[in-house]
């Protein structure tokens, strides 16, 4: 076991929180209460929670268009997240960002990104900043299998490697990039093989096994904190929902989706492990789900009751020195 009971139960609770947050978001989107479009990470909780369970509040994370889970796992406030999704003035970004653009710089979340792979060059800057400031922080960037084929990924991994930056490149290979299968867009079986092109350690793990993710991440973080340089971590997982809510998904067989949902659910799998190791009981588990739901209801309530921003607020906050 890579953690004490308290940590493990906290991780479980966080996974449940991510799952329920995404489920809630899907429902409110379907109900027309969340504008724009949203991308859910249901089925990928092993990655977000396994990775972030190894981080300190002062460590940095850059995330993606599918970033709700990463944010929650890094400690973001549910109320302000839901409020942002609803476009309310009390949201993280005062309603300016929405689902694809949430950040919380107070806990090192450098932001979601609407540009695929947009976080990688940026995380290099965070890593360089850490090195120049001589702290022992680490910087983590999440990106997808689809993102991994964009040029900035290459530039960022190369730069991180020649400078031994304290960065962990976490590619969440959920098999799909929108309508495009990972196997079509790239000729590699394991994306961690890309690490070799930068003389960087690369590891592929079962991303739906939160403890496997955590184990690999702990080693990567240790390396980074010691100044030994970056690591690439591939979490093999699956995108259970459509690319965006409302995706017709003509491109894949729902049977494939169901198998993953039923046979390889990271939350359920972790629950089984905890139960087996007698760290969790059905009763305790239910209590956790109930507590999470209660917390989420409160967040949704907060968002609903919050006002929309005033139209003119659109003109605020563009420049720090106006």
């Amino acid at each position, binding site marked *: 076991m890579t953690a004490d009971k308290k940590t493990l139960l906290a991780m479980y609770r966080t996974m449940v929180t991510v799952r329920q947050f995404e489920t809630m978001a899907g429902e409110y989107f379907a109900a027309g209460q969340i504008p724009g479009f949203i991308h859910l990470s249901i089925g990928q909780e092993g990655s977000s929670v396994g990775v972030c369970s190894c981080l300190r509040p002062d460590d940095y994370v850059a995330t993606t268009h599918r970033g709700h889970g990463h944010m929650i796992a890094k400690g973001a406030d549910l109320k302000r997240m839901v409020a942002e999704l609803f476009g309310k003035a009390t949201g993280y970004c005062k309603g300016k960002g*929405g689902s694809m653009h949430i950040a919380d710089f107070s806990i090192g979340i450098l932001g979601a990104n609407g540009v695929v792979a947009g976080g990688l060059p940026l995380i290099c800057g965070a890593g360089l900043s850490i090195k120049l400031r001589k702290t022992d922080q680490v910087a983590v960037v999440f990106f997808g299998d*689809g993102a991994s084929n964009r040029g900035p990924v290459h530039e960022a991994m190369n730069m991180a490697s020649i400078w031994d930056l304290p960065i962990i490149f976490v590619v969440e290979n959920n098999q799909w990039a929108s309508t495009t299968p990972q196997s079509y867009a790239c000729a590699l079986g394991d994306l961690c093989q890309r690490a070799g092109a930068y003389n960087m350690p690369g590891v592929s793990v079962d991303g739906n096994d939160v403890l496997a993710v955590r184990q690999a991440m702990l080693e990567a973080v240790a390396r980074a904190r010691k100044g030994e340089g970056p690591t690439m971590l591939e979490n093999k997982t699956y995108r259970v929902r459509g690319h965006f809510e409302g995706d017709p998904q003509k491109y894949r067989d729902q049977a494939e989706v169901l198998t993953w949902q039923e046979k390889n659910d990271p939350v359920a799998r972790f629950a089984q492990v905890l139960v087996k190791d007698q760290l969790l009981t059905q009763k305790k588990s239910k209590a956790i789900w109930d507590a999470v739901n209660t917390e989420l209801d409160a967040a949704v309530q907060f968002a609903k009751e919050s006002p929309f921003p005033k139209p003119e607020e659109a003109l605020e906050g563009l420049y720090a020195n106006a």
Partner: protein
Amino acid sequence: MSDRIMSASAALAEGLHEEMSRDPSIFILGEDLTAHAGIFGQFKGLPEAFPGRIIDTPISESCIAGCGVGAALTGMRPIVDFHFSDFVTCGMDELCNQAAKIRYMFGGQVKLPLVVWCPDGAGLRAAAQHSQSLEAWFVHTPGLKVVVPSEAADVKGLMKAAIRDDDPVMFFQHKRLFRREGHVPADPEFIIPLGRAAVKREGKDVSLLTYGSGFFLCLDAAQELGKEGIEAEVVDLRTLKPLDMDTVAASIRKTHRAVIVHEACLTGGFGAELAARIQAELFDELDAPVLRVAAKDVPIPFSPPMEDFVLPKPADVVGAVKAVCYR
């Protein structure tokens, strides 16, 4: 041949279908094209009709644009789909330093028949990185042509012209207008030559110069103004480069007043170029300054009340017209 009513999206697909049937060297390259006939369904029917000629790519905008350039230089007539116009930033070198300059740099040795299809515009609550209108960058890049259709018929006629053109053409089509329907001629040879504006509503009091989504704002505003006895002429520019200055000038010689309307943000937008040319070339014709109606100078915010506030509205056009008419 009689017109049909169809959506801008269907008009695009029909135009592409006709051209691809006519010329086997045409193909479409981009992300997520085959599964749903483009992420907006804009290529409906094409993946089935032209197997192997609608090609899905990895997420690699630089290389997608570059593939368009390389294929155009070697005998093909590629159309590249940029997914969202916001991502031209990821292929900017291939578009502006390669596609735009290659023919000229190499002394005119080659032609580069490339169409870059960019779905653009705001209003979908898609926030700052999925809502931009960036045509002005390319108007400022010698070597590129720039087309921004508004109505369904323009989409079809201009796409066919862009495909047949031997130069790189940036083709911006507004995401919010895909479903908007309009009359489209059935004639398969219906083509709208690049560089021809259209006077789509006659009027004697003021010229509304616009393109893309701005056109519909102008129509609504003209309606409003009509009630108050102000007859606005609506000129749909359709092509920003080459620009049909003759049609613009003719309208202004009649109305002596002009308001320019576009969705791109105000500062440095295409309206600046047009206003600068009008006042320089038609100074003595103007009875009032040329005013611009455009989005406010901020990134597009997510929350509906703010996004609506930032985007230009018919009321803004009405206001600008009154400002130029009541003096």
